[in-house]
């Protein structure tokens, strides 16, 4: 079972990475850019009897370790296949 966790800074917390990347892209001429935020994606593969169970366990991992509740929110997404689909190499 594969679960994708997106960990992002909570709204209102200064995203130093995002701000710097945004500035850099603007400098490269991407004037149409209005906002950019950087977060983490954690792709988890685990044995679980049902998708619900998988989601539950990964949620537990987030609470215990993957996300820092003081700074970050997280969302879970179930994915069939974590191999980068249409990945550009």
């Amino acid at each position: 079972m594969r679960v994708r966790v997106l960990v992002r800074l909570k709204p209102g917390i200064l995203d130093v990475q995002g701000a710097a990347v945004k500035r850099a892209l603007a400098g490269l001429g991407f004037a149409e850019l209005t906002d950019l935020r950087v977060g983490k994606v954690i792709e988890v593969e685990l044995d679980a009897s049902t998708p619900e169970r998988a989601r539950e366990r990964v949620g537990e991992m987030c609470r215990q370790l993957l996300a820092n509740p003081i700074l970050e929110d997280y969302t879970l997404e179930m994915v069939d296949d974590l191999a980068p689909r249409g990945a550009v190499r």
Partner: protein
Amino acid sequence: MTGAEPKVTLDLARETGLTADEYDRITSRLGREPTWTELGLFSALWSEHCAYKHSRVFLGRLPTAGARVLQGPGENAGAIDIGDGWAVVFKMESHNHPSFIEPFQGAATGVGGILRDIFTMGARPIAILDSLRFGDPSDAKTRHLVNGVVSGISWYGNCFGCPTVGGEIAFAPEYAGNPLVNVMCLGLVRADRLFRARAEGVGNPVFYVGNKTGRDGIHGATMASATFDEHAEERRPTVQVGDPFTEKLLLEACLEAMATGAIVGIQDMGAAGLACCTSEMPARSGTGMDVDLARVPQRETGMTPYEILLSESQERMLLVAARGREEEVRRIFAKWELDAVEIGRVTAGGALTARLGGEVVAHVPVDFLADAPKYEKPMAPPADFAERQAFDPLTLPEPADYGTALIELMGSPTIASKEWASRQYDQQVGLNTLVLPGSDAAVLRVKGTSRALAVSTDGNGRQVFLDPRRGAAMAVAEAARNVSCSGGLPVGLTDCMNFGSPERPEILWQFAEAIEGIAEACRVLEIPVVGGNVSFYNETSGQAILPTPIIGVVGVLDDAARRATQWFKGAAHRVALLGPESVSLGGSEYLWTAHRRLAGCLAPLDLEVERRVQAAVRAAVQAGLATATHDCSEGGLAVALAEGSVTGREPVGCEATVAAGGRADLALFGEGPSRVVVAVEPGRARGFEALMAESAIPWRWIGTTGGDRLVLRVGTRAVVDVAVDQVERAWRGGFERHMA
């Protein structure tokens, strides 16, 4: 005024941390109820953290004058003249509460704050030292804190580009619920180019520079003025995030702007942010300030005046420029890709007027804001004070094997090598670090001169707990001794006073006693206090930390080449012990490591002897007579000798007679002030003897370096005889073992 804001009442004032008396004082001076925004100003500026309400009456006892003092307490940092037209600017700050809530960002922003204190004075930061205290490292929660704090300091300091050259990490269970993160920073500036946090010149423009304002850290100052309890979690959203890259740009832009002469005064927006700057700067200059909060660069939408004034977003400064030179200031900040926005003017009349567009949201006298009430609360020694002191450690059994006891002590987390931390810090950027972390003090050269600076931080909470006055004086003596051992003359001191709640009589007593001890030591050792910080309310659910004053001492070496380090350099050097005989196991590291006891009396401290011992060590180093100098601190003489043997690149054995007789644990591991181990090349022994005779201090030869064993005798009995390799392994791996 803004209609949507809450109506201010006494209950609301209480919620923001003000007392009924304080609220009375506000309404009677203003002649009306304050607005919601004004209430915010008072709650932040009259918080313990900003206003030193409980400590001010005591801090006045510290000696702050001296021929070299260019700036004493009261500014962003203190400054000392070091000769050749240079001044060293330094200060220490705590970030204990934020680091407990979010260790990485809390420690990182602690570094950011102290760096800004230094460069607002016009100085380029050259070194950071971090003094850390944690609970027992065998506890997973503590390891998480250590990891977070060290990597936060590493990230911020390294990215900014200031080397971390020293500090300490010590462990005791009393810090488990409230770790200490104290950071000291030093900078260099031409002595005639010091800047101050002033708002002079009515009509001069007021600029906001640096990062945009968000809702982060609102009420940080109030948080630092409250103890932790089960509701600590709820206060979490106030955590700020550091941006060392912007800070580096801010440094370069500020120094560049200062060099043009267009800057009149500048202050860092630290605790209580804009509120603090817009009231303290004019209060120091007898002026006022009129600012439009709508012009403040904001990261979030819909911020209220209250939030804009109290935000503790990082990497921001307020500066007053000379009228007519606004363009120059804007141009320099734009070059460094930073916001510099004119938000108001310096005014006459002594009031802070804050507007939001056209509307006045606060109008209060700055002297009133800056002059919080002072308290003289009741104090009393703790009930078990005499009982703890009455304990005699010699009623405990001796260790079965002294070699094993020494090895255990060398591997105990407080004494073991802290390379695990220091190698995560850049130690050399700036090309000044002559002595890297790992010796008694760090030594930094001052380029373009023959001089160097030596710096050390010290503080032993166990000793202060057992005897606040003597323990605090010992912390001063030790920090100064570390500097003297390196060859530096101590010239200035900063402190960070970490205590529990001052509203408890026994804590306030500890604090008052500690201040007396520091004051007395500074007077005799002739070291002025030029800055410091008080951190109260370091307790969780009623359990206070050990009272922990951390002392940072800066010294000057006139000749940078005449310096010393603590490790033995080769075989057949003679080893001398300088200083008194008297030591005690009371409050010692050994008593804790071997017996888990914190009790007993401290050894006596004779400050006059301390002064002479330090002068003698400096004279020996300056005359080139010493190949190694090391003070005896935690773990006593045995640990000092073992450290001499194993802390250098190559271990060097040693054989010494530590006492004529008596209990070996006392002789080996007893701790006492004013004691220094010195190694001398055999050919220099006569010269050294002559110098010691002149110095009129107690001293004796105790042994010789060489071989691959550490042999320590009491009388003729070799109580310790161990391979130095084994000692080295214990010391190098002792701390890392916990962190792996």
